[in-house]
């Protein structure tokens, strides 16, 4: 299931130091950018994720063009991909000022070439086109994204599989192995191991995976009746009292 929004606003894993930065005025102090960037790399190594802390980095970049660091931005966007269908990716892009960095970098800036690819990947995830996502992700074009960035992000591919799994859980009661495999980009033994880890049962004779029952894949017809609350009637009742 999805974590509650309060955990998105304040992840339980967030250290106090970061909490003070994110919630106070110190978040505007450019000299704190290092702390937040270190925290981002900590998230990359540990599979933790803290959207608001990462947005705080982009906020500092927005106000202080000299801090611009393309690697950090790309890593933030890569992390944000793993939290689809939540709006993290677009919220991050919204903070990127469309201007070139103030200081020329030593190396060519990888960000302008990678950004359109990242946006495409995000759109595919958002539209639940998981097979197309994997095809694009594994394409030659995105070699530099894989070799320079996502390879460092511990558990990146599994995190994307989680995105697919969450959607499948909501939509399916039973799903064919082949179809699920194409969403997870897994086959044979890898697939079986992954499904087993999820605790889902496979009917080997039919090749169909049973998705555990949950509130979203359990449907029922209901009739919503009008619910009148007392405050709605307060004016009428109080008027009736006056009239007497």
């Amino acid at each position, binding site marked *: 299931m999805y974590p509650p*929004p*309060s955990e*998105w*606003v304040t992840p339980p894993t967030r250290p106090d130091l970061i909490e003070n930065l994110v919630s106070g*005025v110190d978040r*505007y102090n450019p000299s704190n950018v290092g702390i937040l960037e270190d925290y981002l790399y900590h998230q990359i190594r540990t599979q933790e994720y803290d*959207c*608001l802390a990462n*947005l705080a980095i982009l*906020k500092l970049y*927005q*106000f202080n*063009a000299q801090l611009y660091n393309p690697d950090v931005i790309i890593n933030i966007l890569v992390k944000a991909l793993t939290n689809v*269908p*939540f*709006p993290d990716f*677009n*919220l991050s892009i*919204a*903070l990127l*000022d*469309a*201007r*070139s960095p103030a200081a020329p970098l030593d190396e060519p800036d990888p960000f302008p070439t990678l950004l359109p690819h990242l*946006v495409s990947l*995000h*759109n595919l995830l*958002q*539209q*639940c*086109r*998981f*097979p197309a996502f994997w095809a694009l992700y594994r394409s030659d074009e995105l070699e530099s994204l894989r070799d320079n960035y996502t390879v460092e992000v511990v558990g990146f591919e599994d995190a994307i599989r989680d995105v697919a799994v969450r*959607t*499948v859980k*909501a*939509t*399916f*009661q*039973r*799903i*064919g192995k082949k*179809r699920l495999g*194409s969403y997870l980009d897994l086959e044979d033994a890898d697939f079986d191991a992954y499904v087993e880890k999820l605790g889902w049962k496979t009917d080997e004779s039919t090749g*169909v995976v049973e998705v555990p029952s949950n509130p*979203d*894949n*359990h*449907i029922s*017809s*209901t*009739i*919503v*009746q*009008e619910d009148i609350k007392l405050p*709605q*009637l307060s*004016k*009428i009742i109080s*008027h009736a009292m006056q009239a007497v």
Partner: protein
Amino acid sequence: MSQPRMALWAAEDMEEDLQDVDVNLALGNYGHSELYDEGAPTLLAMQHQKLLANEEAFAAIPDPVKRFIVHFHQAVLKNNLAEITVAYESGWNRLTEKYYSKTEWPDADLIAPLVNNDPLFLILYRELYYRHIYSRIQPDIDDRFHSYENSCELFNYLLNSDGPVPLELPEQWLWDIVDEFIYQFQSFCVWRSKVKSKSDEELLLLSEASQESGLQVWSAYSVLNVLYSLIQKSKINEYIAAQQQGKSEEEIAEIVGEYGVLPLYRLLGYFSIIGLLRVHVLLGDFTLALKVMENVELNQKAPFTRVTACHVATYYYVGFCYIMLRRYPDAIRTFVTILNFILRMRQYHTRSYQYDQINKTADRMYALFAICNALSPSRLDDNIANIVKDRYGEQFGKMSRGEEGIPAFEELFTYACPKFISANPPPYEDPEALTAYVEDSPQEPAHRHLTLFLSDVRAQAIVPTMRSFLKLYTSLDAAKLAGFLDADEEEMVQQMMAVKSASRCISRVGSDKDLLDGQMIVTSDMDFVINENMVHISESTVGRRFAGWFIRNTEHAQRVLDGVRASPLPAAPKPASAPAGVSAEDGAVAKPAAPQKSVAWAKPSA
């Protein structure tokens, strides 16, 4: 920083001032020459010259305006809130209409003798002076720089005097001060981003302004600094928290300290929170915008709803944040609440000078409501929905048709979104970079946000088509559905997952106070699930709603009854005597003598 500019002003005045004017006469009339003693000798000479020029201009100020300024000043000196309010809300606007509808008010230096050179009053006067320029006349670069300086002087005075300032101003004015400060910031950023239309002089000034690091005029940092300072000084967050905990007056006074107990600081603090909400939205930071609101309770009983403009702005920006967070049900609820409020308040606001502004914002919120309702259909409020159909029926129809409706989404979003700004100026300090900037201008902020929003819309563009098919069945084979849609089965199944995702959304439910809090809810009345290749569909039907209709009409009937009771018995019934300007309600009261017309009053609100 103000020194060199002073000289610039004076130089300009000297050029204009070639006519002969009797020095003694001028000094005699002013009688305040001793106030200029502090200046350096050259400055003094220049100011004498200036006085000469001012003499004529001063004489040209109409007497009612002079009387008004003197009176206004007295009211401020006496801290007489009632008189200040009258001067602020009616006097100023009346004289503007009469004398200054297309020109500036007299320069503050010019009217200084009338108010004993009272520095505080002159700052307040300039606040009005520049606001008038921004709203009625196109401000030039000097106006933009000077209005910034004046705002800084005002906030400096309030924040950095020895202890709290014993000034009292009407709450409406305090809101206007904060609101205008942000408006001028936004206006400056937009103006600054248009490099092509700048004159050489403007380019020079802008390049100087961007080189003074740390001292940047209208920089985002300086604006945020003012707002955060006001919030901290007034301890407004602590005040709101204490109020919500039901603490006593004494306890609250203890908590908020010497600044926070004064209405001026408390209100400025609160308005600064709303100001921050707005600035963060303008800069595209929608989570931070809602986060600064974490202590503020959004409801009609909140203690700060008296300033309608503030109340309306709050809901507009909060609602917009929810759209960008893809929390459409929350956005809808936010807009419905405030639009109903505006409808109810309308009768009291037709005469207010802010009525136009509130109406414009309301119209934009109807457009945003239409967008949200197309993305997440709800039947929250038929009343508002009907008004939306009236105004944006055509666009709404298009938006409910998926991909082909994208231009309609674009149109309404562009119309109704806030005026986004870019945090950083074009590189005015570097001519080469500036040329490159002009040739290859980056995307405008509004366009960037539009693109992001449209990507959200596209992700669920298939929803209307899919829904219209699924609604016809209770169960259906996926391959068959793919056949109907003329689509590949696997791709269609993926689209169905997108439809399913679009029907789930985070939303605040009753107990969530924090604006960012919420739970996953189902937003669609049609739900489905796929069992291998079989699609099962179920529909929730909403029973027809009667309560709103009956409550409205009962209340209406009560008002009519009250009206009938309060009116004297008709002496001789004259059927058509109701004057033209009388509203439907009053008209109805005058009519009950004619029985066949007694149903007429029930219809208009039905």
